[in-house]
């Protein structure tokens, strides 16, 4: 198993032939420091123990006095691998376990060479496939390099095939993306032109409409004044005591509505606030408020108390009054259901809002707010619109016609603007160096794992779904690590933990496919996705080089 000097000599020569790009710092420094002495190193008299030395480093060990690499001291060659650590950095014991810092090189003929920590040498466990790390007779390691090498070569071959095929697909995708992107850019400029024209139309109509409305308002005011006077007279005749009663129907009722609306708005707000507060305080999702908990504990049933106390450790939600049915061992269950309830209603609102736009009375939609991101506010607005809509008088046919025209134009403009902003949003995304991720924009990738369905929508968000419950794992946060990882962050808050997040590792593959989803740390998810987009030419070349190296090494060894 030990090196003999002739084979090491040959190895060294080979190394020089191939110019040995990877020559280690040690070698370089050795040449500098020991200089010409080394070059002239005389042939070694005693058979030196060269176990564990990387062939590239053999030269370093040729002189009769060798320096520790850290220059702390030197040692005579007989101390090389004498099983006593002289150099703190392990220079003198590459072939034994004596120095904690040294590394053991096994050549693994038939497979690829490996460098082990010194802790593996003669520890009774076979680490190198050639078994060279166990030489003290405690254990006999069979040489498995040939099988291992074969397996690894086959694996490499397979991988190469995947890369080759994948690269073709990728090239296609990149072409398609380039083409499509250009198309969409053109579409965008067309849309923008249309928008400009439409804006002019709307503007004109608006001027017209304003004039009509102004006249209308004056009329209205007049009428109102007359009405007031009429009522004042009436009131006077009924008497002061009843004044407040009679005021009620005329003045208070509209306010009533306003109050109702603002109530709804407030409760929306507070709903959101409470949700946030809950998550801020790393919400132990229990029914009972912390402050009042002490008192409330007393009134709990034994089972509720048990669950509540358990929840301090686990953060599981404790459900009151069995309202949500069976005990769930998913701590996020209830919260998610609630979330969804809210989501649903907002979705509905959206639909309502969209219907609105197509409605001929949609002229009350405030265009300034159209592009606002804030959903909540939008919802409120639309809510209000919805209410006010029913109060729009439509008496005069002329006014009505202009108003309808205005409304139609406006609505067209709105939808146009929405299209523009969508397209702009898309086109400003980072689709990779070659636009290879362009097609990811409109795709979601899914994986079912036990009871969960994971949904990864690049450029948008990722979620974990269980029946009707959804946890947001994060919203799109871009690529990291040279397009090898997609990051989704700021997902739903975890009790006592971080916000959920997901990292998607990308690997070359022929299909877009989620291979695994894991949660190595609480609420920090990691998924693996294969995609042709990650089949890079540079990597293919590297693999081919690797294959050539393996082949030439094998050839050499045989």
């Amino acid at each position, binding site marked *: 198993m030990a090196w003999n000097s002739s084979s090491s000599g040959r190895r060294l020569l080979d190394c020089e032939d191939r110019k040995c790009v990877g020559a280690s710092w040690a070698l370089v420094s050795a040449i500098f420091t020991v200089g010409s002495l080394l070059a002239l190193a005389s042939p070694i008299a005693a058979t030196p123990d060269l176990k564990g030395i990387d062939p590239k480093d053999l030269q370093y060990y040729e002189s009769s006095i060798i320096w520790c690499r850290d220059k702390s001291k030197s040692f005579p060659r007989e101390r090389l691998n004498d099983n006593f650590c002289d150099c*703190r950095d392990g220079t003198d014991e590459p072939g034994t376990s004596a120095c*904690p810092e040294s590394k053991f090189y096994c050549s693994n003929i038939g497979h690829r060479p490996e460098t082990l920590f010194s802790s593996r040498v003669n520890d009774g*466990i076979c680490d190198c496939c050639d078994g060279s790390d166990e030489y003290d007779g405690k254990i006999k390691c069979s040489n498995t390099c040939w099988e291992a090498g074969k397996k690894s070569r086959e694996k490499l071959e397979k991988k190469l095939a995947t890369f080759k095929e994948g690269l073709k697909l990728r090239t296609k995708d990149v072409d398609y993306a380039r083409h499509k992107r250009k198309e969409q850019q053109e579409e965008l400029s067309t849309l923008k032109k249309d928008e400009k024209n439409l804006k002019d139309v709307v503007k004109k109509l608006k001027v017209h409409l304003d004039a009509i409305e102004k006249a209308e308002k004056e009329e209205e005011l007049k009428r109102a004044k007359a009405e007031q006077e009429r009522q004042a007279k009436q009131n006077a005749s009924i008497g002061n005591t009843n004044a407040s009663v009679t005021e009620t129907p005329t003045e208070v009722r509209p306010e009533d509505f306003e109050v109702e609306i603002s109530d709804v708005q407030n409760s929306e707000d507070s709903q959101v606030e409470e949700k946030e507060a809950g998550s801020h*305080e790393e*919400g132990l999702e229990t029914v009972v408020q912390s*402050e009042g908990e002490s008192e409330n504990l007393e009134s709990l049933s034994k089972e509720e108390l048990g*669950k509540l106390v358990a929840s301090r450790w686990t953060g599981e939600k404790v459900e009151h009054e069995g*309202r949500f049915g069976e005990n769930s061992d998913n701590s996020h269950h209830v919260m998610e259901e609630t979330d969804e309830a809210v989501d649903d*209603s907002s979705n509905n609102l959206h639909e309502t809002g969209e219907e609105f736009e197509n409605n001929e009375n949609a002229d009350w939609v405030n265009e300034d707010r159209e592009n606002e991101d804030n959903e909540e506010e939008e919802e409120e607005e639309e809510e209000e619109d919805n209410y006010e809509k029913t109060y729009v008088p439509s008496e005069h046919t002329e006014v009505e016609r202009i108003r309808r025209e205005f409304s139609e134009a406006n609505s067209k403009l709105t939808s146009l603007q929405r299209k523009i902003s969508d397209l702009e949003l898309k086109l400003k995304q980072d689709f990779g160096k070659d636009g290879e991720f362009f097609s990811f924009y409109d795709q979601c990738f899914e994986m079912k794992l036990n009871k969960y369905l994971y949904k990864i929508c690049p450029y948008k968000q990722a979620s974990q779904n269980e029946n009707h419950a959804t946890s947001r794992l994060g919203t799109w946060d871009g690529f990291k690590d040279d397009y090898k990882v997609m990051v989704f962050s700021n997902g739903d808050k975890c009790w006592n933990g971080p916000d959920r997040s997901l990292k998607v590792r990308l690997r070359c593959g022929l299909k877009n496919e989620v291979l695994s989803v894991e*949660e190595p740390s609480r609420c920090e998810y990691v998924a693996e996705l294969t995609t042709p987009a990650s089949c890079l030419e540079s990597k293919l070349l590297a693999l081919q080089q690797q294959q050539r190296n393996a082949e030439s090494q094998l050839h050499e060894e045989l």
Partner: protein
Amino acid sequence: MDCNLQFILGLLCLLVVLISNPASGFKSEEFRKCNQAPFCKEARARKPGTSKAHVSEISLKDGSVRAKLLSFSETDEPAGALILLLTVYREGILRIRVKEENEPPSGKRRFEVPDVLVTGLEDRRLWIQRVSTENGVTVFYLAAGHEVVLQHSPFQIHVRKGSEQLVSFNSKGLFHFEQLRQKREGENWEETFRSHTDSRPHGPQSVSFDVSFHKAEHVYGIPEHATRLALKPTRGTEEYSEPYRLFNLDVFEYLEESPFGLYGSIPFMLSHNQDRTTGFFWLNAAEMLIDVLAPGWDKEVDNEEKTAASSIDTQWITESGPLDAFLFVGPTPKDVVKQYTSVTGTTTIPQYFATAYHQCRWNYKDEADVKHVDSKFDEFDIPYDVIWLDIEHTDGKKYFTWDPILFPNPEEMQKKIASKGRHMVTIVDPHIKRDDGYWVHKEATEEGYYVKDVQGRDYDGWCWPGSSSYLDMVNPAIRSWWADKFSLSSYKGSTPILYIWNDMNEPSVFNGPEASMPRDNLHYGGVENRDIHNAYGYYFHMASAEGLLRRGDANDRPFVLSRAFFAGTQRVGPVWTGDNTADWDHLRASVPMILTLGLTGIAFTGADVGGFFGNPDSELLTRWYQLGAFYPFFRAHAHLDTKRREPWLFGEPYTSLIRNAIDTRYALLPYYYTLFKEASTTGVPVMRPLWMEFPKDASTYAMDDEFMVGQGLLVRGIYAEGISVESVYLPGDEPWYHFETGAEYAGGHHYKMPVTLESILVFQKSGTIIPRKDRHRRSSTQTEKDPFTLVVALNTAKQAEGELYIDDGKSYDFEKGAFIHRKFIFSKGRLTSSSLHGQDNSRKGFSSSSLVDRIIILGLKPEESIGKHRALVESVNQKIDVERGPTILRRGAALNAVVIRMPNVAIADDWSIQLL
């Protein structure tokens, strides 16, 4: 309108289920205070001198002093007499027992806690030959120069040496003994605390008294509390707090400084001053409260025996149970610990692997996770010996089962772990899921093995699995049945490398009073939980360890970690300090907690490295590893919701720093194992307060930021962020050597030392020899045949000595002499190794092929030694090299030491090496 409705509905849903604040932190109000417990409140309010008990009818019976105690309180109704029994054991131990003379009318006897006292105790009893009675006192012999003085009226007991009083019992007249009696008409014995009612069927039965430690500077012990090592007064002129409580409880997010009772209880207190250490132990497993009274606490009271300013008085109060107490006279700290452990037993020497590093987390999720973590340790060349699985590994929190999806092939998984010489630990808790499909529950129900509620039904509490019952571990038959559950055939998926962890054994009952069991629950023999509460976890621990013992044909030392403990737990297995928190204060608190456990007999202890709750930053985690590497029990653990924090996850430099810390522990394993051997024979703990090694040095008495490991190492942790200079006190008048640089520091000084993130402050005491194994390995298993390094730290006389104990690290063969025990002495330039083992050990079935390949000598100037010196291995008459070298084999280590190179003498042999 539809939309509105949806919103309102959504809102309603939120309101119903919402989301309160997290139950963050310790909830003081959920735990009973002294003044909420009538027995405690009354005892605490009692004035000194209240007790009017007097002694009569003193006689010698079977070598013990027997007497009657009468009319012990003016206020109490007349009751039967009490019997006082005083017994003496070898080496200065006095036992004080008081019982009701007559069988109580209810038929209930006070429960005497079984299986705590060692079996051979009776053999060490000294027969009291005679007593002398005059002037109202009876005096008899205790130990070398010590006498017991029994004062008749008022009843008091003193231990004295010559004219010097050491310890007194009832010298403050607080003795109070509520005799068991029948309920009077209209009397209501029920007590309620929060929503829980305690029926108290046997009524008042509290016992309390005072103990005075004369001239004591400090008192220590009575774990488990998160407090300083030197116990602060709880009552007195300035101070006032809750008394120290001994009541085993599962406390959520405990505070880092509080007299509040935690998971275990040992009613053993030590006192110390320059000349004398004494101890007092009360064998009673009921709720106990102990006040440490500040000097002058009784100055308002007209009492003839005012406390001398230098005394520390203490008041001891229990709810029920016997008065059976032991007094230990010392005189040194080690003597007291030895005396205490001669009564309750010593720590069994652990398996070698168990003294190495343990990797735990709630939870390693599945087999792939286990494999991944295991392989990462190898990838980063960080050694570890044991990987742990918390509750999530089970099928629905049914212990002895495996989650079929996450752990489908547990045996295969353990085989892989075992192939690297590593071990695995799984958790087994005492709450049994009430699930008819669970065989443990089925058997326990059928056999009637559960603890009963006050109505006599199987008690149904709530814990991890939901509705759960608790095995009645007080019953030896049930313990035996339980032990059989650990056999390889019964515990499916277990293999011989699997060991056990007992958690929640206080017991923790989520919906019980104070998150534990109702006091009126009934155990074997009709004993209430009130009487055995603090020992429940101990019996459970004992039964589990017995299971592993049986599994290994009584020749594989069990390893069972327990959270709850009682006096005697040291014989069973290690404990840890429970659910601590990842902050600097908890890091700091771990030291006094572990030191206190060591003083009270439990040598094998540790705290969760990293802190259980919360997320340590990289610096805190590094500091925790650096300190934790010196805990007797070295395990990292983390809560389910924390971020992963395995040693390699924080990147450089932290990975390397943590690796260095763990490597240091591995290098020192031979030293630790030798210290465990010492603990197993003498009771002296592995990790010791400074005053145990330097009992005369008063400046060390309250020190608990630094500590000793054995006699040889002093460790000073770093307990705050960003420290660049830290003070350290090096006691004694001999020099110390920096553990890593070998630099020498004179003893008896406070130093301000520069500190980097590289390491905490560790020093080797001069005059000691520490054995190490410096080679890196995957786990301790692979170090077996590796050579030893001896680090010889010379004192000013250029002398040093040390020991090394080795055995097979697994079995009980050492009891038959299968071990190597060496003594190393360095004197006059010669290092000799001789056997401490009585006979030639080669015939006793254990030997070692390991050599000594490196001898590091600190205290010789390298520049004077190198070149001139060689060394002669005298047995083979071979000259070897002496060189300048580092104290530790690490990149950049200073070359401050003289190194004898490759003596290659066998560790098992006698040899000597002479420096020339």
